[in-house]
């Protein structure tokens, strides 16, 4: 039961004005531009796109600016905006084997065809604050695309999964029935038991922090994972659709993605020969921690398929999938701020009555 809120509209309008002022901060400080956020906070943009489940760097940058840097709030804004756009097509599955790779590493093999390419990574930095960055330099010309020399052709980079798979050491990932419908959480609510397609979609949109902790828990023994980072790739892939009025698929553009293949050991069972098993993580933009966490949790949730007894939180499908969406979580947690005056009144009355009863009983006993 809800009590209608009388008045307060003026206060709310004033709150919005104050919010806008706080968002802007000191007017003497230059205002943030979307281009600055897109370029210089690109990892934040990546997170907002992944969990907002909408790839559009400019919109994500706008959401971050409007949310004052609160990423979960920005994700909320992007998800809300999503609902105003019609869905016009579904893409063909992207081919990560065709990625224009900017970073590619494997912790399972040292020498791999195509090599270990570190790319732009924090991994080897010493995590010392760099006070040079406190200075703001004047903008300069973008030289990243210039250069007279023709670049060398890129080397072939077969996936580590393919290499391991060729000896049958790694369980294959097969497409299965391509005509079967693909789960879509934006259309049908989750139902349990959830199939892998629904789980992967939920994890892809899921909160990085939650999945990170769950992934961590699997490593600490809450689950029998023994994971290895088989391969992590960052780069751009083409997105193709085939509209009804065209007799062939067309490319609509490229997106940057991060892909993680986790390789986990699995001792064979009566029905299966010993093989490495897999977990898969995929994000929009550059998001390694999320992709890795997603892969660890994906593997944990596959316990049913792999005849493993679920014994830890990360293997509890309902626990993981019901709580991984930070929009839902934030909504319910923050809804506590809404007036609960009537509920609380009835609690108050009950507590007072109980205390009165107890006092009366005590008196009677004496």
């Amino acid at each position, binding site marked *: 039961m809800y009590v209608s809120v009388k008045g307060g509209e003026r206060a709310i309008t004033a709150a919005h004005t104050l919010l806008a002022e706080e968002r802007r901060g000191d007017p003497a400080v230059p205002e943030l531009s979307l281009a600055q956020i897109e370029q210089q906070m690109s990892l934040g943009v990546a997170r907002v796109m992944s969990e907002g489940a909408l790839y559009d760097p400019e*919109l994500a940058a706008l959401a971050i600016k409007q949310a004052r840097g609160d990423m979960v709030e920005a994700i909320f804004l992007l998800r809300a905006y999503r609902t105003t756009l019609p869905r016009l097509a579904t*893409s063909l*599955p992207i*081919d990560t084997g065709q990625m224009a790779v900017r970073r590619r590493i494997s912790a399972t093999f040292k020498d791999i065809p195509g090599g270990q390419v570190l790319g732009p990574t924090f991994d080897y930095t010493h995590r010392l604050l760099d006070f040079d960055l406190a200075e703001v330099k004047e903008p300069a010309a973008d030289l990243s*695309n210039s250069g007279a020399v023709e670049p060398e052709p890129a080397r072939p980079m077969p996936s580590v999964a393919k290499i391991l798979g060729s000896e049958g050491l790694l369980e294959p990932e097969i497409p299965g029935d391509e005509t079967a419908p*693909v789960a879509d959480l934006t259309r049908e609510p989750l139902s349990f038991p959830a199939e892998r*397609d629904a789980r992967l979609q939920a994890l892809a949109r899921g909160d990085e922090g939650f999945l990170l902790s769950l992934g961590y828990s699997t490593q600490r023994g809450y689950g029998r994972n023994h994971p290895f980072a088989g391969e992590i790739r960052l780069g751009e892939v083409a997105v193709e659709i085939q509209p009804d009025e065209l007799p062939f698929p067309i490319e*609509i553009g490229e*997106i940057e993605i991060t892909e993680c293949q986790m390789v986990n050991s699995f001792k064979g069972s009566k029905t299966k020969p010993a093989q490495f098993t897999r977990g*898969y993580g995929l994000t929009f933009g550059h998001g390694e921690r999320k992709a890795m966490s997603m892969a660890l949790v994906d593997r944990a949730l596959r316990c049913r398929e792999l005849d493993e007894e679920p014994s830890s939180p990360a293997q509890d499908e309902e626990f993981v999938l019901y709580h991984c969406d930070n929009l839902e979580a934030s909504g319910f947690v923050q809804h506590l701020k809404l007036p609960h005056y009537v509920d609380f009144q009835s609690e108050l009355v009950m507590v007072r009555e109980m205390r009165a009863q107890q006092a009366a009983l005590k008196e009677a006993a004496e």
Partner: protein
Amino acid sequence: MEDSARSGASEEIDGLAPEHAARKRWMSVLAKAGAAELEQAITAMQEKLGELPAYRLIRRPEVGMTMVRARAGGTGRAFNLGEMTMTRCTLRTDDNLVGTSYVAGRSQRHAELAALFDALLQDPARRPQVTALVIDPLARAQDLRRDRRVERSAPTRVDFFTVVRGEDRT
């Protein structure tokens, strides 16, 4: 397919009739071009080839989304990863060519220009010139951009030296 790291392999499209392959290629190039690039191309074309035909919009530029699908493990069962913004447009020129476009992003102008070029390129009389003037240069620039992006990571490729065992040293 998986082994090819050569980006932008639009020239080698297996299993498509040449006519379709050509159209697929130019549509891809138009989609990946920027709206500003296409505006410049229109101007350049008008200067070189004269007035462009007028056209009527069958479907006005419409901003929407595509659901991006991926595969579990990169090769397995399809799943829905998330949506991306996309704009589409379909138009018919006065000389009855129908052009259509589906381009990533939210630029209605981009979609309209791409659809116009798609229409013009379907005219066998115009195709060679428009291809040479607009598509080929854009394609080259796109390939170059892509290759340069990848090339920037080349210095970060690790060269492992095999360490010689201690007994070889004195």
